[in-house]
């Protein structure tokens, strides 16, 4: 056991330990709690940066603990996992900042931040899981850690949403576990490896493999909000804004999407997927989800619900990208994992700001917000533009790669899907932007003066500004070595060069 093999553990612990400590803090220990929170974040970021440069240089970070016969508990930092780890750590930082501002003066903050840290630990652990069994483990932990956040408000609606969330995610988790058990019974749970490890079984067990695939995708599809399994997501909107931001941008939905990436590339592998003819259904499903989500988003009058349905649609871009099995499409899917995270979190931050500062929840109440809260509105606009896939934003890059990947992999109709979805995105985002900027100020439900110098509390303002800047930077500077795009290319290079 050297430092390298412990690094993944430390990364998980860097949010877990502060989280557990925060649970035990009294409500009024604001300073200590904030210190713990931010300290954890910074330590994590440092560790992740360390690992980032190591992985780039080709180092291996591998931690193993005996757990079940045939499958240890493995944490393994590879390029793909680092993509998700980086995303969640960076967004954890901004969300923590946001949440501190958002929850100022409200009760049960220790509990909130405790679960919040647990949630991040579960996400990071999930990203770092080295085999299917560890993945399942963190997947379930994530469900448990997010539930208290969903019902944090404790109102009747939030409890209803929480019940629904649990009903979906627990069922999904169980189905996932069934699938994992099936695979485990065939081969054990070896380490995720590019190209998958199931090809020796292809001749004998193709039926079982297909069954396993269906089970795994169903289980993961719940969190990834694939079409018939998306129902929890719009309901979960009753949660506080930082939570919906985290749920929808980073933790939960991405966990599902990330799992699909893992299953497709590192468990089944491209060859097996092709020989079992499993890609078509997945592509169809993802496409249907993309269109359906956008269509439903159009009909929502509530801002957060509209964003939620937008998430349903956008997360399936990731699935779509990996399902097409082409390297370019994979780059698109992987980079969208990050891009969508940053864009959607921006939108939710802004929605939270509008709700918190002006009491706005419905879209029709947004009239003229642009002049009262210009920075938030700009951030929102940038996020929405990114969602539509307009150039100079991150969304454009992922859309471009997805679409050219679709052509590359021989799915020209996917291009139509992407275009239709973009059109629908524009149809549901542009009216919102129009209201914000172009209409005269209306009657805001509950305007508050949260700050003397800024449009709202600075802690609420800073995170969306940061992420909005990130959106533009990730779009404009996509060619740099630091960009998610380059990293996705690195991942794809490693995933596709296994033989």
């Amino acid at each position, binding site marked *: 056991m050297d430092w390298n093999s412990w690094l993944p553990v430390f990364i998980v612990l860097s949010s877990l330990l502060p989280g557990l400590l925060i649970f035990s803090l009294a409500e009024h220990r604001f300073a200590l709690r904030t210190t713990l929170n931010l300290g954890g974040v910074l330590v994590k970021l440092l560790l992740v940066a360390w690992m980032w440069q190591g992985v780039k240089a080709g180092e291996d970070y591998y931690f193993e*603990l*005996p*757990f*079940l*016969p045939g499958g240890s*508990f493995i944490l393994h930092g590879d390029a793909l996992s680092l993509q998700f780890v980086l995303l969640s750590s960076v967004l954890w930082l901004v969300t923590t900042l946001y949440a501190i501002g958002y929850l100022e003066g409200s*009760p*049960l903050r220790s*509990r909130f931040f405790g679960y919040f840290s647990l949630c991040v630990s579960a996400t990071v652990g999930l990203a770092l899981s080295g085999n299917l*069994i560890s993945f*399942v*483990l963190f997947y*379930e*932990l994530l*469900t*448990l850690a997010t*539930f*208290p956040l969903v*019902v*944090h*408000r*404790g*109102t*009747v609606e939030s*409890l209803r949403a*929480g*019940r629904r969330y*649990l*009903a979906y995610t*627990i*069922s999904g*988790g*169980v*189905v996932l*576990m*069934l699938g994992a*058990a*099936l695979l*485990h*019974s*065939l081969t054990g749970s070896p380490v995720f490896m590019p190209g998958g490890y199931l090809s020796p079984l292809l001749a004998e067990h193709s039926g*079982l493999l297909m069954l396993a695939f269906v089970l795994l995708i169903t289980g993961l599809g719940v969190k990834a909000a694939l079409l018939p399994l998306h129902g929890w997501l719009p309901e979960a909107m009753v949660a506080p804004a930082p939570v919906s931001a985290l749920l929808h941008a980073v933790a939960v939905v991405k966990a599902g999407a990330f799992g699909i990436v893992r299953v497709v590339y590192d468990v089944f592998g491209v060859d097996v997927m092709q020989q079992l003819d499993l890609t078509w259904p997945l592509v169809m499903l993802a496409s249907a989800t993309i269109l359906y989500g956008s269509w439903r988003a159009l009909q929502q009058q509530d801002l957060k619900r509209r964003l939620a349905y937008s998430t349903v649609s956008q997360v399936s871009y990731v699935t779509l990208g990996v399902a097409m099995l082409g390297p370019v499409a994979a780059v698109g899917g992987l980079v969208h994992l990050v891009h969508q995270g940053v864009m959607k979190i921006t939108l939710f931050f802004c929605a939270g700001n509008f709700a918190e500062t002006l009491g706005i929840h419905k879209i029709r109440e947004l009239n003229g917000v642009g002049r009262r809260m210009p920075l938030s509105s700009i951030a929102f606009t940038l996020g929405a533009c990114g969602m539509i896939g307009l150039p100079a934003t991150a969304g454009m890059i992922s859309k471009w790669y997805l679409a050219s990947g679709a052509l590359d992999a021989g799915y020209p109709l996917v291009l139509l899907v992407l275009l239709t979805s973009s059109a629908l995105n524009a149809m549901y985002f542009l009216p919102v932007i129009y209201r914000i900027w172009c209409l005269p100020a209306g009657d805001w439900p509950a305007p508050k003066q949260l700050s003397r110098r800024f449009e709202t509390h600075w802690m609420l303002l800073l995170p969306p500004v940061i992420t909005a800047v990130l959106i533009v930077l990730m779009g404009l500077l996509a060619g740099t070595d630091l960009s998610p795009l380059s990293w996705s290319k690195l991942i794809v290079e490693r995933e596709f060069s296994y033989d």
Partner: protein
Amino acid sequence: MNFALAAVLLPLLAAVLALCWRRQAARLVWLSTLFSLLLALAALWQVVTFGPASMQLGGWQTGLAIRWQLNELSALLLLMTALIHSLVASYSLSQWRDAGLSADFWPLSALLQSALSSLFLSVDLFNWYVTLELLGLAAVALVLLSGKKALQAAMRYLLLSLAASLCYLLGVALLYGHYGWLDVPQLAVAISEEPVDHRLALWLITAGLMLKAALWPLHVWLPAAHAAAPAPVSALLSALVVKGPLFMLYMIWSQLAGPELAVTGSWLFLLTGSMALVVGGWSALRTPYAKVMVAYSTVAQLGYGLLALGLMLHLTDPAFTQALFIFVLAHALAKTSTFLAVGEMQLRLGGKRLSTFRGASQTMPLAMFAVAVAGGSLIGLPPSGGFVAKWQLLLPLWQHSQLWWLLPVILAGTLLSAAYIFRLVVLAFNRAKPVRPDFAPALLPQWLALLPALLVWMLAFASGSLLSWLGG
């Protein structure tokens, strides 16, 4: 073996002493549980290091004397008994003044521990009967600690327990009458040498044990009795007492039933196990009372034990034995935690309906956390002990496609258990009722309730060695 013997005798002595010296009963028994925990650990260490041992009580030859067997399985169960008892004793010690727990609890629980330990060690049909009686009576007496309100439930428990004992005794008598052996391994040899129609004996024994272990459909007494008892008692009953007969069922069926009868029997266990999972889960979901819910959860969870037993008999795969006993361990820990936490919350929040728990995550976060964590193991979420058990159950199942119908059953059982656990948890997150400012429940009992829940999650990481011990 010496350690195991001491682990049986220590609680017995403590019980007798506690009856004499009532003022110090609590401390005596508490200390004895702690020491017996150490002894059980030592016994386990001994088995792992030196291999299994057996002892003829009184040193007489086989057939004449009662035989004790100490192997990994019995050592683990011994350890489980000691562990749960020490946890429950610590909990009771920390709050028995508030809970109004009678001083009689101490000798009774010590006797229970002694009887159960003896049961796990013994491989003698008649000695099992005696320990079973002892177990049943101790359990009834413990239920009665709740006073008048538990009377009806306890009486029913007593009556059915006696009926079950009689059934068992009848079966044993039939076997003994024909073969002349009470010692199980010897009896197994005799049966395999000269098989006769011993179906009725086996069925009588099975029915009696099923009634004792509250296996569906003979579980009817359990919810009332477990719900009526004081919290520490419910924990003991659910975690340990029903496991004794289950262990006996396992021993008897795995050793005495021939391969043909085993397959027939396996159908019984598979069917009743499936029904237990579904019906028990549904009842737990529908009941408005918290402890009844937890009690029904025991009924449902025992379904997994039945399934594992049935599968073991059906497919003769050692993995199912592992599943069965890991399940037993995990369920014991999880149920202890659940009952202690629920009992503590009932005590502090006042009320036995589920609605009492509204807002409990705010008022008693630790206890609620314990329920949720233990519930995670009951559901089988990784990486808990319940998960490992379920995993061991599922894995070989995939290889045997003729039993595919068990998968949806297990799925349904899991979902139902998730539903009732989270029904409680969701209620606890309701913030409709503000907390009284002076409300500050004691923390120690809550921590003690949480401890087994944490242990059961750690169990998963010890599962490697557990599996290897149980695999033999």
